[in-house]
């Protein structure tokens, strides 16, 4: 039995294919490429061309994400994002009690999980200042790559506005004061972390599991480790939602065959 999990995010579409109980194959495709190359519009609704992506062998599909209600994936079971990410974290970390922090391209989520079940959550609205999009915009302003941005955490310059647009003006001010790339980058990373930290504090537990595209940012991991007991970054943080979809499919299948 092959089960495909799809997480249609705002910046990337993630695919995870399970065979039996194991993750066999995964891919991350930019959202633009995904809609341009792998989707077609039929009678006003968008249909996904799984053959073109190379995932047409799946027996069962479970999908989630930002675009899940707009996109027709034939025979797919659609689940909510919170649940998808929690199942992903359950599979990847094997923990049962944790606080999940998922920082995606367009939002972040803090979800408290106790005995393997969601018991609380805090979500931000679509706000660029607390998401990966903020990092991308600020890196573009500094004319550096995300790869370079993510490594700097020492001596952050102060960036205090809560808004991503005004944050750019503030960054320009700091550039004009003569600060160098490392401090400016650290300032960007730290300002994102500072906005998210109060939300984690509200739902903290002994283990913080960090997922989403921003989990690849070493500076954010560094700041988290300074403040919290145990920080766990799963092996495939950006694929976590897609893995969660696939894993839930596996669980359902297991139950079905045991019944």
């Amino acid at each position: 039995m092959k089960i495909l999990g799809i997480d249609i995010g705002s910046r990337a579409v993630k695919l995870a294919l399970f065979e039996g109980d194991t993750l066999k194959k995964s891919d991350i495709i930019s959202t633009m490429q995904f809609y341009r190359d792998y989707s077609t519009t039929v009678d006003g609704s968008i249909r996904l061309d799984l053959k073109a992506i190379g995932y047409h062998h799946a027996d069962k599909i479970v999908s989630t994400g930002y675009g899940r209600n707009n996109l027709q994936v034939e025979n797919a079971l659609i689940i909510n994002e919170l649940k998808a990410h929690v199942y992903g974290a359950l599979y990847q970390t094997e923990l049962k009690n944790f606080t999940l922090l998922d920082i995606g391209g367009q939002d972040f989520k803090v979800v408290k999980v106790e005995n393997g079940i969601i018991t609380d959550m805090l979500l931000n609205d679509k706000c660029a200042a607390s998401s990966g999009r903020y990092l991308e915009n600020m890196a573009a302003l500094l004319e550096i790559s995300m790869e370079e941005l993510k490594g700097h955490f020492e001596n952050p310059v102060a960036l205090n506005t809560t808004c991503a647009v005004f944050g750019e003006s503030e960054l320009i001010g700091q550039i004009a004061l003569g600060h160098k790339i490392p401090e400016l980058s650290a300032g960007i990373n730290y300002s994102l972390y500072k906005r998210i930290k109060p939300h984690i504090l509200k739902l903290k537990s002994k283990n913080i599991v960090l997922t989403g595209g921003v989990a690849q940012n070493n500076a954010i991991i560094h700041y988290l480790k300074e403040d919290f007991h145990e920080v766990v970054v799963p092996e495939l943080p950006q694929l976590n939602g897609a893995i969660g979809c696939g894993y839930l499919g596996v669980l359902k299948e297991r139950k079905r065959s045991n019944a």
Partner: protein
Amino acid sequence: MKKVGLTTTIPVEVLLAAGCTPIDLNNIFVTGGKGLELIESAELDGFPRNLCAWIKGLYATAMTNEIDAVIGVTEGDCSNTKSLIEVWQSKGMRVIPFGFPQSRQREAMVKEIDHLMKTFEVSMQQVNKVMEKLYPIRQRIKYLDELTWRHNKASGFENHLWQVSCSDFNGDPATFLKDLEVQISEIEARSPFSDYEVRLGYIGVPPIIEDIYALVEANGGRIVFNEVQRAFTMAEASVHDSIYDIYLSYTYPYDLKARLVDIKKAIAERRLDGIIHYTQSFCHRGIEDILVKQQLGIPVLTIEGDLPGKADARTKLRLESFMDMLRDLKE
């Protein structure tokens, strides 16, 4: 006939024997549709903002309704009531204190109930007569509870409302029974809820949030156990029990340990998939959540309520996600 307000369940047999009309102030406060106004008026009289809304609601309900006296429960319910009693007395309200002895010793219970009987000038014979009348009503309520969890026909809200109303039998046990029979016949005629629904237990004090039962049902589940409300019914007592025995085996006012035994039994018997632990903001019972989560062995969702009204968006999302995952486990 005197109207006597109650701050929580008390040996209501004594009041009925004395020919008084018992009025559970909680029920009037939360169902009267003026909850927020009552809280505001209590705050204008000086009650702190960071205090349980029930206490403020009880205060203002007694002050604005025609109540001749109040029985204030000082032990086993809420220690805020002790200060509430003093404020009531300063405003000229007659208050009779009653305590569920923390030792749960028979002698202490005898003393408390005898004192209550003496205050209301009733004999044990009169009390026993009332007990004989209430026994069949309590058994019918037990049947309504079975219609909820065994026959799967009654809703969680019906179960809550009828059981919670046993603290005062809506002031008139005979009419209460007549209305109950109508409700039971209506429920019996229904077809049962689905076998696949998520079965939840509700533990902790009754909710100040009015739509919690409806939200659970909108998410494909049903509350089939209302812990404290069921305790209010005294339906587990035998026909031979004395009034002292009944209120000694009552779980709510005593230690959490005994309540947990009762809850665990219900989890097994009623095949519960999960528990909603309701706590009231600023209430000492919130601390009990630590033990509830450790000891029940099934998923627990803690919902904290503050003011009367409908659940907020976050509570709705929490409940939805919790039940969604319970359904995955059940399927």
